[in-house]
């Protein structure tokens, strides 16, 4: 029944769209009403905070129109992504995209949304990932960790959201770089969400993990965890002594990085894309935005890259890894 309803709704939307196309085409006064920003992950997490920070900052440049954050969770973020791609490309429904939006289609051939089913408005921030062990552990460097993994014959454990989630790929990429079998050299213990992952390491229930910095920094600062390596293009300001994967010569791991971006449904009119480029360039230098990004432990990269090319390269990176690790043929 809902499929029929949906069909009817799509038809109605199509009729509406053709009649309103004329008015949106000359939408110099966009936005004229509230904009919905869909966050595909749960409230309170890193992506949610990024979305809410963007919403709070962007409203200064959207003709006083509010940007309303809506959390649509489930299926590795694909529920929210799919919802946005099914909306009218009128600029009133946008997606706070994460690395998952490139990773999921790269790993699942039956992904409900392809990596390029969007209009790419901009890359917002880079959120480094950290490889860490419990402070009580005797492991001090990545080499020691890898040596232990090698000698334990698969008995070491690491926490991750799932084998094909970004925080599973961080570890598997490192294992592949060290010529170990990415799937069996160490045992994955799945947990849901950054704080549950952090708690697993904090309680000593797993040996190590490599997840988003935002979930780990408080524990590292409190001296409960030890950071071994950072997955980011450059060292983190907060951890100047911790080397990056690239510095240590890990090729695959060196390319892994977390990020947030702003996407819209495909075929967004040119002038609205231009308007958002304009809004984002304002956001890039906004003190509140920069301040909130710093507090989340992420680096604002608004306007630094060509979003389409960046997302494509990310998709290809993870697609290559998925093939290499044997998730797809």
């Amino acid at each position, binding site marked *: 029944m*809902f499929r029929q*309803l*949906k069909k009817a709704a799509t038809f109605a939307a199509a009729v509406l769209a053709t009649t309103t196309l004329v008015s949106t085409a000359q939408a110099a006064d966009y936005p004229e009403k509230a904009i919905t920003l869909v966050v595909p992950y*749960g*409230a*309170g*997490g890193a992506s*949610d*905070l990024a979305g*809410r920070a963007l*919403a*709070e900052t962007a409203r200064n440049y959207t003709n006083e129109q509010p940007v309303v*954050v*809506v*959390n*649509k*969770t*489930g*299926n*590795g973020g*694909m*529920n929210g992504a*799919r919802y946005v791609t099914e909306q009218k490309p009128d600029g009133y429904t946008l997606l706070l995209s994460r690395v998952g939006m490139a990773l999921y289609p790269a790993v699942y051939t039956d992904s*409900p949304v392809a990596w390029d089913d969007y209009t790419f408005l901009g890359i917002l921030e880079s959120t480094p990932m950290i490889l860490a062990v419990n402070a009580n552990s005797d492991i001090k460097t990545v080499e020691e960790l890898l040596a232990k993994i090698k000698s334990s014959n*698969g*008995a070491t*454990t690491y926490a991750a959201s*799932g*084998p*094909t*989630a970004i925080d599973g790929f961080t570890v598997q990429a490192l294992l592949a770089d060290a010529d170990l079998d990415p799937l069996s050299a160490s*045992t*994955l*213990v*799945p*947990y*849901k*969400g950054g*704080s*549950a992952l*952090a*708690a*697993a390491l*904090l*309680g*000593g*229930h*797993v040996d190590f993990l490599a997840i988003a910095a*935002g979930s780990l*920094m*408080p*524990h590292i*600062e*409190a001296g*409960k965890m030890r950071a071994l390596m950072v997955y980011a293009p450059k060292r983190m300001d907060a951890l100047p002594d911790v080397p990056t994967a690239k510095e240590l010569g890990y090729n695959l791991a060196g390319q892994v990085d977390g990020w947030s971006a702003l996407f819209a449904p495909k075929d967004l009119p040119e002038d609205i894309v231009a308007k958002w480029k304009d809004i984002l360039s304002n956001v890039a230098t906004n003190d509140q935005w920069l301040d*909130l990004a710093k*507090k*989340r432990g992420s680096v604002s990269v608004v306007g630094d890259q060509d979003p389409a090319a960046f997302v494509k390269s990310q998709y290809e990176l993870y697609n290559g890894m998925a093939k290499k690790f044997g998730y797809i043929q």
Partner: protein
Amino acid sequence: MWNELLYAFEAVATLPNFIAMAAGIWGGVIIGAIPGMTGTMAVTLALPFTFYLPPVTSILLLVALYKGSTYGGSISAILIKTPGTASAACTVLDGYPLAQQGKGGKALNMALVSSCIGDFISNISLFFLAMPLAMFALRVGPPEYFMLMAFSLTIVASISGRSLVLGIISACLGLLLATVGEDIYGSFRFAVTEDMKSGLGVVPVLIGLFALPELIKMIVFRPEDNNAAMKLGDNRLTMAEFRGSVKSILRGSVIGVILGAIPGIGPSTAAFFSYSEARRTSKNGDKFGEGELEGVAASESANNGCCGATMIPLLALGVPGDVITGVMLGAFMIHGLTPGPLLFQNNIGEVYSLFIGILFSSVFLFVAGKLTAGAFAKISRIPQTLLLPCILVLCVFGIYSIGASPFDVSVLLVMGIVGFVMMILNIPAAPFLIAFILGPMFEDNMRRSLAISRGDLGVFFHSWISWAFFALTVLFIALTIRREWQKWREKSRNTAQSA
């Protein structure tokens, strides 16, 4: 320390803080009372406002909303058999029968008093026991968690009503339904449509199961006499009734505090847990489920007892246990405060202010609850034929508002039909729900434990915490079997005599 406390008291005792708390609690009670609108939603909606408030005020507002909504769920649970939040599902079991007997006001008062006591004990524990409880919670790893969940599933025996077999069938159905969607390794089960990949929401299942069957029953059977409104008889809670339940209230509060401190368990499990314990130990145990005030007290003291305690892992370890404390973590970070051990070193002033502010919340809860429950109690005077369609509309809109998802609404309606069929077959709904809530935690922690041990079952017996829960599980099952056997023997003796 005393100087710091005094300073913190001065800092927190300001008008804006009190306004934020009063507004939060009252708003929470009303949102909690509306079916489908949950505390999670209230807290998420309030988050952007907190960007503009001082840190302590923001957190107090969010905590107040959480506490208010946890209590508020009991109002609709008692009056219209529709738990406003999942944690009030257990309150339905005795609350609604009480309302049908014209004792709705009494049940509401009992719910309020036990909620406030649970809340207060929870706050005190947060104040004094945060660190030791947090350290205990951290030791609960996957094997211990699994054993705790195994023990929690024995609750089914206490909430099965007349037939244990039907209760177990109901729980099995609940466990089965809980497997729908993505498992922890990322493979999909029973994912017929794209929407089903993310599983079924607790709130649509809960409301479909509890609220809709009444409505369907009215449509199908068209009872003649259902136009009469429920009577609102004696509303006062007598001292004797309170004294009779005080043990259950205190026990429920402690259960709430301990389960609340362990991340991820949450108030619904605590409520069922406490109810089960109260039923086992009360001298009126056999009357539970037919309108026993002590049942309402046990459930409500435990779910509010959880609220303060869920802040323990958040503040002491920086680990939020559920979505609501997750949002609070976000609010802390926005204000540049990082929950965890460092918070107690760097921001002890804020921590004390927060603790003191939270202590006041019990008082606010009592006043707000008294005012709101009084107003809501008039609902009982509306005839069922008018009331039930209104409830349906509220449920559908409430469920839709959670995620703007038509799929959630269809889950609600389908579960309503399932609930109706179960009602006709006399299968109790409560075991279904508790199994549905516990199922994922039970399964996930079993698989995690076995992943860590690489298939060795010995992992479940490595710590005294596991052993303790294992022993309790065995003991409880043995007691249940003995009780069932006695019941069976008595019955067969009676039939033999009459024959």
